[in-house]
């Protein structure tokens, strides 16, 4: 009975993976098409505005992934269910990938917009860099520990990173003063060109579907690895 249910579950998840993969490919194709053919140039950045569409989606999903990792870590420490550990590691890997994209595209954009590759006074980039290091450390920790200890210790690290991230955000806001110029709103506070906003939203949807698909596959891989170890 349990075996039949497990097979039904596997088929359901296979189907979900295929659907997400298809949706992610379609959304990426649509977003790419829109960005390069329909989205307008920006007054200051002109055609280089297109870096924004890669950067904003990656940054937003990186923070979503950080939040998933931290939440899954708390749930693991509370319930000691390995599924939460699988979700945590899947989200942590994606957060590192997305943060890397955020940092690289953010530097390129900053160079074009403000003529600097890196500025410690930017609270968002600084926080992203801090969290990138924390989660690279998280993945390194998982490489050098085993079994339940790996799940527990990495969960503790992920939880300890929460106040560090919050405090770093406040520290940078308090002590550093420069911010890059606004793009999604104009200096007078009005919304940017609807074409730009639409392109940003399309890229966000594409990123969300790609990350959703990737996380589902990764969680299933981790669960399969655990099941193999238990045999």
């Amino acid at each position, binding site marked *: 009975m349990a075996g039949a249910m497990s097979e039904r579950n596997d088929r359901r998840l296979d189907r979900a993976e295929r659907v997400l993969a298809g949706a992610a490919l379609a959304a990426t194709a649509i977003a790419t098409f829109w960005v390069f053919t329909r989205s307008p140039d920006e007054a200051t950045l002109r055609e280089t505005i297109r870096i924004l569409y890669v950067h904003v989606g990656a940054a937003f999903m990186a923070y979503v992934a950080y939040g998933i990792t931290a939440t899954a870590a708390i749930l693991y420490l509370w319930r000691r269910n390995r599924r939460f550990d699988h979700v945590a590691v899947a989200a942590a890997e994606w957060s590192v990938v997305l943060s890397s994209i955020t940092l690289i595209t953010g530097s390129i954009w900053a160079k074009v917009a403000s003529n600097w590759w890196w500025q410690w006074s930017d609270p968002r980039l600084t926080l992203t860099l801090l969290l990138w*290091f924390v989660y690279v*450390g998280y993945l390194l920790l998982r490489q*050098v520990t085993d079994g*339940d200890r790996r799940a*527990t*210790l990495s969960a*503790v*690290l992920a939880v*300890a990173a929460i106040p560090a991230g919050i405090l770093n955000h406040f520290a940078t806001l308090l002590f550093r003063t420069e911010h890059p110029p606004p793009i999604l709103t104009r200096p007078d506070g009005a919304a940017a060109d609807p074409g730009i906003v639409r392109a940003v939203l399309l890229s966000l949807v594409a990123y969300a579907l790609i990350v959703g698909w990737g996380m589902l596959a990764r969680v299933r891989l981790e669960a399969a690895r655990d099941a*193999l170890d238990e045999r």
Partner: protein
Amino acid sequence: MPIEPACTARDIAHRFGRVRVLDGIDLDLLSGECVVLHGANGSGKTTLLRILAGLLHPQRGTVAHANGRPMRVAFVGQAPGLYAELSTIENLVLFARLHRLAEPGDAAAEALDAFGLAHRPGMRTRTLSRGQQQRLALARAFMTAPDMILLDEPFTALDTSGGGLLDRAITAACATGGTVLFAAHDDGRARGRADRVLTLADGRLRSAAGPGRTVRSQEPTAERNDVAAPPRPAAGRGGLGVPRGAWLIAQKDVRTELRGRELLPALGVFAALCGTVLAYAFSDVTPDLPRVAPGAYWVALLFGGTLGLGRMIAAEVDGDALSALRLTGLDGGALFLGKWAAATAFTLAIACVLAPLWVALFALRPGDVLGLAAVAAAGVPGWAAAGVLVAGISATARGREVLLPILLFPLLLPLVLAAVRATGGALAGAPLTDLGPALALMAAYDVIFCVVGFWLFPVVVEST
């Protein structure tokens, strides 16, 4: 009259990676019985002992104690679990206090005598031979008259005399209702003293009656009557309160460091060297050395302090002293606070030594010493809190020396930002109101990470 089991294990299973070492172990240990556990190398004897001691959570199965009440359990593993820089009597007094024995000094002296170490009360443990350390570890285990004593190959390092003393202690413990389970190689001496012989093979347990006694009886036998049972010392169940436990741990660490002088001098020199190298490097690109002094000060403190922190935590893990601490019932939060207090004290000492050096290296004013030290006093507690927690996380990982700074430094970034800002302001003579936001952030960091560490360190300790 049927005898209630003192400890019951059901369906215990555990694996390491893909290697299943225990596979469905059922075991009842009775009060007053002596059981020997045989098995080949790698058969899971140590794993089973640690699970029964509560030091390792089995992946499947349960361990229950008589009537559900907490038992006093003692465990002596293959590492003695002693503090090298403390003397024999100091090691025992520390653990007697942690076990809340009424007369810790007397109990420690009696335990030393019972294991033939009474003539060496003041000798530092690191100067003892392996066999003498084993005797000391056994003395600590039997000192509190625990309900259950688990010994992992205890006779291995002992000579004939030591083996005889251990025999007497086991017999006396069983005579007063204690349960003894020890792992041993299959030899006649081990079998000869056992009520029951267990053999662990292929993850399963086989039981056979030992030549000692085949029928359990409430009346003591002739063999056990000729050994005087020691009076059970008045020991509390459960651990010490958090403040007292933390104080004992901090005191132990400070005493160890003052005796051994292993960390402070080396770390002080290392931090000074960091400052020298930074001052030399910066002097090539800027004449304004006072401007970079705050950042250099905190980099040197963090680098030096982190090296020391790793050693402080490793000292508990490497010799397995941590297992002995856990069995005292010491709260994990108390252990965290004790380590935190010691780490804070050591690093503040280094900070005070560095401050006048910075005046010379970075062309500061003599009065700046106070500013440097004052801001260090505000920031070091937060560093110590995050550091102790992360050092605990990395202590049992491979490559822990490199892993510790990789995990710790990103968490310290907000503290470093605020500390450098506050230090720079102090050196520039800024009024206190200007330093308010930085000091407030440092204080918030200190409090938050002390709370986070106090809450999470017990989880880390349990998984060690």
